């Protein structure tokens, strides 16, 4: 009899094992890192891309369909950054939970975007009608997104709501303590000028008060051409630019070509978590970015 009760208890405890953790599908490493900050091990996390990939140009590959199949929440940039692959993944996986509603979390929907084009014409390159989607390098926006994401996690997984609330409080404290430090360190960058590979730095530059004087791409999404690069030599020299910025995933050749002819250093910034050894998490990403930029001052 006793054995039976024990068996029943065991069975009962087996049943009461907490419901399988929330499955989160993050499109980009920065949102994967933010999810980790806010959820720790309370969720199962799949990150679809790496810092060395161009997220504009991912393919809807089978491994991603399999991951999407089990997702309860999709955390992506939005603003059409993933237009070429995310809708296909969702449709092919047959997972309607994440197509819209609470299962779909777009970072750019939580904040005001910059660079909204006043005119939509593909002759202007690959423009994003809802504004520039690369919002991860403005700490204030990241904080706003973190708060919204924590709320969403709690909504989908009320059992762990306390975990998300507590971790958000912890993250906010550390993040808000870090911001003044970053701003103090970055003060000498204010008013300086940079040439960028793709217009993916607008939030960082606006935050730091750095001016963008040119792009290596003649138009967004169009690879640099030698004619266009030659045209940049004069302006880069004349305005005594601080640096030429590329992201870790971009081909550094174009930036190096211009650096050689102008003496202005070509910097490769991590752009997202995992973009270099230092950018292991969101804090490291900001530290690494500022280190590289300040390094160009010397």
């Amino acid at each position, binding site marked *: 009899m006793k054995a039976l009760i024990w068996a029943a208890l065991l069975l009962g405890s087996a049943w009461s094992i907490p419901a399988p953790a929330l499955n989160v599908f993050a499109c980009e490493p920065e949102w994967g890192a933010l999810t980790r900050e806010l959820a720790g091990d309370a969720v199962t996390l799949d990150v679809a891309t790496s810092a060395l990939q161009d997220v504009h140009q991912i393919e*809807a590959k*089978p*491994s991603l369909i399999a991951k999407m199949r089990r997702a309860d929440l999709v955390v992506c940039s939005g603003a059409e950054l993933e237009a070429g692959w995310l809708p296909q993944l969702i449709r092919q996986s*047959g997972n309607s939970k994440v197509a819209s509603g609470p299962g779909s979390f777009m970072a750019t929907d939580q904040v005001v975007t910059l660079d909204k084009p006043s005119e939509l014409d*593909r002759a202007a390159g690959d423009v994003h009608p809802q504004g520039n989607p690369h919002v991860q390098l403005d700490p204030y926006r990241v904080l706003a997104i973190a708060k919204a994401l924590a709320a969403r996690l709690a909504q989908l997984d009320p059992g762990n709501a306390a975990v998300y609330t507590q971790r958000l409080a912890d993250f906010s404290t550390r993040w808000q303590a870090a911001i003044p430090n970053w701003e103090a360190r970055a003060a000498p960058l204010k008013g300086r000028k940079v040439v960028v590979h793709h217009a993916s730095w607008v939030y960082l530059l606006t935050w730091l008060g750095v001016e963008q004087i040119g792009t290596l791409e003649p138009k967004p999404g169009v690879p640099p051409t030698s004619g266009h690069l030659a045209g940049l030599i004069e302006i880069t020299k004349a305005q005594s630019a601080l640096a030429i910025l590329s992201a870790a995933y971009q081909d550094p050749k174009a930036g190096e070509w211009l650096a050689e002819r102008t003496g202005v250093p070509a910097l490769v910034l991590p752009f997202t978590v995992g973009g270099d050894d230092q950018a292991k998490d969101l804090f490291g990403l900001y530290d690494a970015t500022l280190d590289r930029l300040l390094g160009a001052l010397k």
Partner: protein
Amino acid sequence: MLRKPLLLLTLLPALAVGAAPSADPRFDALDARIAALEANAQVLRDQAAAAQAEAAAARAELQQMRAEQSQSKVAAVAAPAPAMSASNANGNAFNPAISMILTGQYAHHSLDPENYQRSGFPLVGEGGPGEQGLKLGESEISLSANIDDKFYGQMTLAFGSEDGETEVGIEEAYIDTLALPGGLSLRAGRFFSNIGYLNSHHAHTDAFVDRPLAYQDFVGNQSGADGAQLPWVAPPDLYVELGGELLRGDNYPSGGADNDGVGVQTAFAHLGGDVGIENSWLAGISVLRSDAVAAEDGFSGEQTLYLADATWKWAPRGNTKDGGVTLRGEYFFDDRDGVYVDAAVPELVQAWRGQRRGAYLEGVYRINRSWDTGYRYDRLWADQDGPQASDHDPVRNSLMLTWRNSEFSLLRLQYSRDEPNADDSDNAIYLQYQATLGAHGAHKF
């Protein structure tokens, strides 16, 4: 003479302050100096006003920047999404996404397409060498949108011209369910069957100008039909998609909707995954069963078509649009058990029992975002006996070079050497353009 009194009149107020009116030229000089000083004062006043305006503008800008900054700081808990505002105001907000494909080509064949014969494989559907010279390709318009919370709909219309007449065809028109549980979805309407690899892909995503010979001969270029499709994606980490279709079977290879209009059944399984971050693969097996009645190639009876497909993509860092290699092969096995009726001699009915096979292997090297080049080997194995018996097995080799200005436009040059029968060979050169307009499409792997 008249000028002087006038001048005096105008000078009067200024001079009134000074000495009595006089014709002394010194007064004129003094007066000019006063006027100059006054003008000077005005300029200074203007400058001061301009400076003040500038200062005010700067103050306003500063205030706006402060407001923006505090807004972005406060945006902290900001209400979600100002993202969709203006565009929702008009009645077009719920219009479907519209995209359009434009394509055209120039083809030169050394063998007149009119005299082209593929031994063992009568030309069917849209299969065949195509036409000589300049030609508009199929122009497509595709509309798609979520219908409501449970359904998604898409229609693709194809416009082509046949002997100077414009033809409009419904290439696809289907609805998909969005809310079935457990990785299931159901598609109903007209669609491209999910058998093999290329069949469910639109021709504008192909790497070559034309479809492989096996596709031309076994499914008439691309198998599209009215029916229903039920795919299921399995839960594990490995991508596993299983499914089946029930199709009407009007078109080749069936021809004539037999069995109350459900004469064709298919089943398919696709597996896929990654090896590291630089390699991805997809493989599948499929089968199509049809009860054909007077199909385009003269066949009536039972046909079973088996397909095996495999795709391997390698790209440095997984950036497939910037470089890498795609290898793909598909194998077809066509088993017939029925009769053959020659359209020219309907009285003569022959038994048609036998097997034919076909395959292609292609490799595409992506040099960079703008350029790719590829090679394709096509092969067919004809039946040894029966009405389509042939000793010659058709072979074709193709080379292509593609230049993309952006992801929305491309130019393609292709050379093919085709040996369709024992006596003929066809050297063909194609120059093709292709453009995508409108909504940003999301393509299958």
